[in-house]
């Protein structure tokens, strides 16, 4: 496909890797913000083409992974109701709540439907006037325009039986939270290319200036990620800390103005709990009061939900780049994609699931076996 295949050219990737090798003089830690980038990095083995001194740690940019357990329990509470058709993006179905996941509820008779686009829910709502259609509106800034359009159209068209359970998250407050943590190791970021397609990268400039870290807005194909890494290391090696744009074929500084406009009419900024991380001030969106009629949190009684995080799971530390998936004692043993303990093992974009899918746990087992076999 055009604009994809040419960015998977291995010769070009190696050429950039050579240049990176040439300019790197010391150890640098970069974080790729977005889960889609993590997936690409592990899938194509990009981290293994980098100089040894350039370390990539995986960021929090997987909305499925960071949706709080409390919010997932709320979703399950709504989905269990007989009068509800609960709609969700597919990757949310297997995320474990305190008791169940959406697939288990579906097997017990709950009406749970996977939608491709949030506006599909409006059609379902029109066709089922006796039911309450609830959409689990999760996502980063990338998904906000689509979710905003669903609420906007529901109000405009008077679709009263449609509502959304909103758990939107925002990237810049999460970067600030990571950089402010005492255990932080991150010295530069590969910024989220598709988030910035929507909102631009103006908001990243104060983060870069305040914490003196390079932020390179980066795409998702191997050539993009390699080039983004090169641009970030170039800055670090020369003592610079700026926002640069590796992805100008789709990202501009100002973002998509019609999208920003509608998102601002439908959502307002709020504090948001991130799974494994805790509450980050002003790090999410909720529906504005004008959309109360379509706000599932206001419409359903969701009090008395008792949420418990599994104690073994270190996904919060993985999401902040403090630990890698294989540092977790449960990884690949107690916790697998079939029986995930935490969300980073569920979504294909979660760092743990990516490590597992591309056999990184097997490499570790082999390495461990080799290590133990040479010991007397």
């Amino acid at each position, binding site marked *: *496909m*055009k*604009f*994809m295949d*040419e960015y998977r050219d291995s010769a*070009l990737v190696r*050429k*950039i890797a*050579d*240049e990176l090798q040439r300019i790197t003089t010391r150890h640098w830690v970069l974080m790729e913000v*977005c*889960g*889609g980038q993590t997936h690409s990095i592990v899938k194509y083995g990009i981290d293994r083409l980098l100089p040894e001194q350039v370390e990539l740690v995986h960021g929090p*940019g*997987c*909305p*499925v992974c960071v949706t709080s357990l409390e919010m997932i329990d709320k979703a399950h509470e709504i989905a269990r109701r007989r009068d509800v058709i609960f709609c969700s*993006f597919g*990757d949310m179905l297997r995320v474990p709540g305190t008791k169940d996941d959406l697939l288990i509820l579906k097997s017990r008779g709950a009406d749970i439907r996977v939608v*491709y*686009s*949030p*506006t*599909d829910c*409006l059609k379902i709502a029109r066709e089922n006037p006796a039911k309450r259609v609830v959409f689990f509106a*999760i*996502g*980063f800034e*990338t*998904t906000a*325009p*689509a979710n905003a*359009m669903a609420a906007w*159209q529901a109000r405009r*068209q008077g679709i009263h039986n449609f509502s959304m359970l909103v758990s939107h998250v925002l990237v810049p407050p999460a970067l600030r939270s990571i950089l402010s943590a005492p255990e932080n190791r991150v010295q530069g970021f590969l910024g*989220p290319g*598709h*988030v910035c*397609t*929507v909102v631009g990268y103006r908001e990243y400039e104060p983060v870069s200036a305040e914490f003196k870290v390079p932020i390179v807005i980066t795409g*998702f194909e191997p*050539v993009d990620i390699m*080039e983004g890494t090169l641009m970030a290391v170039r800055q670090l090696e020369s003592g610079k800390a700026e926002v640069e744009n590796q992805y*100008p*074929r*789709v*990202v*501009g500084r100002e973002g*998509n103005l*019609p*999208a920003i406009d*509608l998102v601002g009419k439908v959502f307002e900024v709020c504090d948001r709990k991130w799974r494994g991380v805790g509450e980050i001030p002003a790090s999410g969106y909720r529906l504005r009061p004008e959309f109360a009629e379509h706000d599932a949190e206001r419409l359903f009684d969701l009090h008395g939900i008792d949420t418990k995080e599994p104690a073994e799971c270190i996904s919060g530390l993985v999401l902040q780049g403090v630990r890698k998936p294989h540092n977790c004692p449960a990884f690949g043993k107690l916790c697998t994609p079939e029986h995930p303990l935490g969300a980073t093992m569920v*979504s294909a*974009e979660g760092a743990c699931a990516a490590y597992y899918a591309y056999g990184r746990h097997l490499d570790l087992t082999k390495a461990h076996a080799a290590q133990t076999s040479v010991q007397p």
Partner: protein
Amino acid sequence: MCLAIPGKVMEVHTDEQGLRMAKTNFGGIIKSVCLEYTPEVVPGDYVLVHVGFALGKVDEEEAARTYAALERMGQLDELNEPAIEDTGYPYS
């Protein structure tokens, strides 16, 4: 989740809800895409699509420019390296 892929806009129309939509080609798979956020897009343009919405137009000139710059990278160094002498014999 922030997966977004480029597709080529084939034809533009307004749907029954009054939304500007496009038949869009993703490497042979045709899907309907909402163009409400990309009013400037016309058939033949490439758009970046996420959950059924075009989030932006792919700038073909910008893509060509950065790609060419990447391909040129390192060529200046190569000019400084001594040329390998062509002996005419491939197995030397």
